[in-house]
């Protein structure tokens, strides 16, 4: 049961959250001009590193806000940004 730091509500148990996978995958500016291959990458391909991953979580059972955090996928250690204002910033 990870203890996930919601930038708003503070640390809460993992079960209150919804995992959203890799962060910073943005919707193509103009999908129509994107090749089939690139579109497939947007839809289906996500980083899967063994190590630190910047990922999206939503505090589903709490404030319902999405946020980004960095977590080590081997140790589950969460790297909370020193800059608190950054933590609240949302990216896809």
């Amino acid at each position, binding site marked *: *049961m*990870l*203890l996930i730091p919601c930038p708003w509500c503070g640390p809460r*148990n993992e079960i209150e959250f*919804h995992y*959203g996978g890799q962060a910073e995958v*943005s*919707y*193509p500016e*103009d*999908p*129509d001009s*994107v090749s*089939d291959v690139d*579109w497939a990458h*947007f*839809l289906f391909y996500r980083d899967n590193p063994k190590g630190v991953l910047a990922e*999206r979580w*939503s505090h*589903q059972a709490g404030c*319902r*806000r*999405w946020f980004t955090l960095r977590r080590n996928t081997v*140790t*589950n*250690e969460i790297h909370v940004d020193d800059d608190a204002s950054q933590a609240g910033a*949302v*990216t*896809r």
Partner: protein
Amino acid sequence: MSNEFRLAGGGRIDRGRPVRFRFDGRELQGYEGDTLASALLANGVHQVSTSIKFGRPRGITAAGPEEPNALVQVERPFPEPMLTATTVELRDGLEATGLPGQGRLATEPDPARYDAMHAHCEVLVVGAGPAGLAAALTAARSGARVILADADTEFGGSLLGADEQLDRAPAADWVARAVAELGSCEDVRMLSRTSVFGHYEDNYFVAVEHRGDAAHTRQRIWRIRARQVVLATGAHERPPVFAGNDRPGTMLAGSARTYLHRYGVLPGRRAVVFTTHDSAYAAAIDLHDAGVDIAAVVDVRDVAPAYWASLCVERGITIRAGATVVGTSGTDRITSVHLANVQSGGMMSVRQVVGCDLLLVSGGWNPAVHLHSQGRGALRYAEDVGALVPGGGGRGVRSAGAATGAFTTAECLRSGAEAGRDATRAAGYDAEIGPLPTAQNLPAPAGRTAWLLPSPADSAGATQFVDLARDVTVADIRKAIGAGMESVEHIKRYTTIGTAHDQGKTSGTNSTGIIAELLGRDFAAIGTTTFRAPYAPVAFAALAGRDRGDLYDPVRVTAMHDWHVEHSAPFENVGQWKRPWYYPLPGENMDTAVLRECHAVRSGVGMQDVSTLGKIDVQGPDAADFLDLVYTNKMSTLKLGRIRYGLMCTADGMVFDDGTVMRTGEQRYLISTTSGNAAGVLDWLEDWLQTEWTHLRVHLTSVTEHWATIALAGPRSREVLSRASDLDLDNESFPFMSWQDGIVAGRRARVCRISFSGELAFEINVPRWYGREVWEALYDVGEPFDITPYGTETMHVLRAEKGFPIVGQDTDGTVTPHDLGMSWVVSKKKADFLGKRSFSRADTTRADRKQLVGLLPHDDILVVPEGAQLVGTEALPAPPVPMLGHVTSSYRSAVLGKGFSLALLKGGRDRIGDTVYSPVGGRLVALEVTEPVFYDKEGARRDG
């Protein structure tokens, strides 16, 4: 002959409270405070069961959860499989039998209750021996919140099973004082009988509290989140591995001490003590002083430890240094041990047989590093301990006491206090180590690690048991290595070593040592198998807790639920919701009830509870733009007061949800979702809004449960509603796909003209607390029209007759709006919307995609089962048979007078008019492919 091995005094049992119990059919007696094992020993019973593979007699070897041998099945008060006699508390009426391998589950329902409790603390201390108590006291005195958990029935740990002095008084006195002080601290929670069995991320620990069969809650799972943790879990004594080491009567030396001091039991009359370690001498001395004849202390080391040797000499106890046990005799119980001298080269000389009924053994101690390791803490092989000790690396977790390889009480107290202080400080509290009790000045115990002991009679090791629980011997390890295995993990799996109930608590270190020795490698190079939760077995039911029966998952009900129950509706589970399925009248089955309900809606009027549909309030200057992005069709052009059907796709172009969109204000909409997907849609929309289209000023609010919603459907619905409402309901003033606010049955309501049945229909929304009242009022005013409540089944038939697909039933995540024949709902004008780009991928543009069509069986009375497959030929070829699609919805239609279906069919729209076939009940039936709309194709009926 009861309790002939029980001393007249001493121990922590309550002699005033005798307890009767049965073991293997024998009526026996013990005392409150006994374990089943101590009571059996008091009655002279050593053999508890036979072994799993070889059927050899097996006895009690330990006094705690590390017991590998003494497995019992509890029969009463309630059957429970595979417990260790050493951890079963003696209770009046307890019945148990010895268990030779496999446990037995009860066939009757378990009457007990189980639950869970969350707890938080600054410092969690696991284990309440001297180290744990010292840690807890240090932390508690700082004012920090402390949880102290111990698996045992009493706090004190090893101190309860020894006769050590603290502050020149029995150690138990200090324990009592420590416990009293802790008990007086407001923020200290003391959990005895609580085994901490799992260590998870961020100091999340799970424990099981055994509250007893009589308690309201038999077992409770504690879910503990701790800032800092001290693991003071002690150590398990390690049995040496020698020929015949499994004979009942063979017991860990420290455990024998525990039986003596804690339970007032003499585990035998004449004992041989066999050791590689100093700690066994204390057992020899204590047992001697209690009246046991110590036939010899056999020490594999060339020189006996001076301090202990002198105590033995004082008592006339013979020490055989440089000797080893090479075999044992006895059938149900050990009768003698065979000794030999060991020369340094391993050569044997001078053999001797010594009669005894007890063989006490010690091969040193294994620190209980399980919880430390579960939390990814590193382990290090400590040469002097001959076992793994914590090697750092835990986050906010410290070990103390014997768990670190500290084996004197003084050291344990000090390391516990230090760990307690450091943990408390790390948790942000001021802590100092207070005065600690003075322990006796005993020499630090030392030992020699000896993995493989020589045994001329059994040089292969066939009777040298490493894992008693799994009957694994040195010979088995040799065989695994002989088969080519070198990894401890392979050898574990080949031999099953360490995989029993005890998870190798007494065998793990030995097996690594033996493997290392056989392979000629270092212990550290071989390492250990992985420590995994649970530390000790936990009952399934304890983990299931309160989430059972009706509480297994929330039952969600609407405002009208009780009315449906009163009108005998069976319910369909839709997600967590209960929805009325149909309303059978006396004598009706589902088919006849549904036909009647359908008929009522098509020819008169019906009413349905549709409160479960998801409803989301969408507000903001950019609400229209947002909806244009998430629906396939255009919503921004929707006029105030009007309603539009909408479809949502995921970005891969597959249908995700559908519903209606009402424009309720200049910048405000109310959208509906399918019942099962309401939360999913809201999350999905929030996701895009918050993380992608952050420039859009839109707020989403779920209002699903604010409203109760009643559908009135059928040609006479207008008449019914007009009798209960002030609204002008004719087609001009209240056209199809519009909404109005008005009064219905005396309550303010929002009425929509939408129809899922194709008939004239209204949906009436009132705040939930008026739901039942308005429902009943409509039912009453509808009475003259024979108003008929209908359930989800009828709703499905009616919508299928109209060819309206249900997301999730007529789609399966591989279906586009075009496949559904709903291109009309896919905007060609909008620059973009979710799913659009995917419609131009190679696979989504294929002409032979599966498309939604209707099917009419040639045989009028047939209703093809939902899920039936479709093929193109009149006769079935040999498999694999090419399949064309499948039936997604299928019902008997009251208006058609026959069965009909919806199906997804390859190139379906081009096949309209063709015949396809479906295997049904062993034959192939012919079906005509039709348009998916079966009824009122022109849509004339919706206006009444």
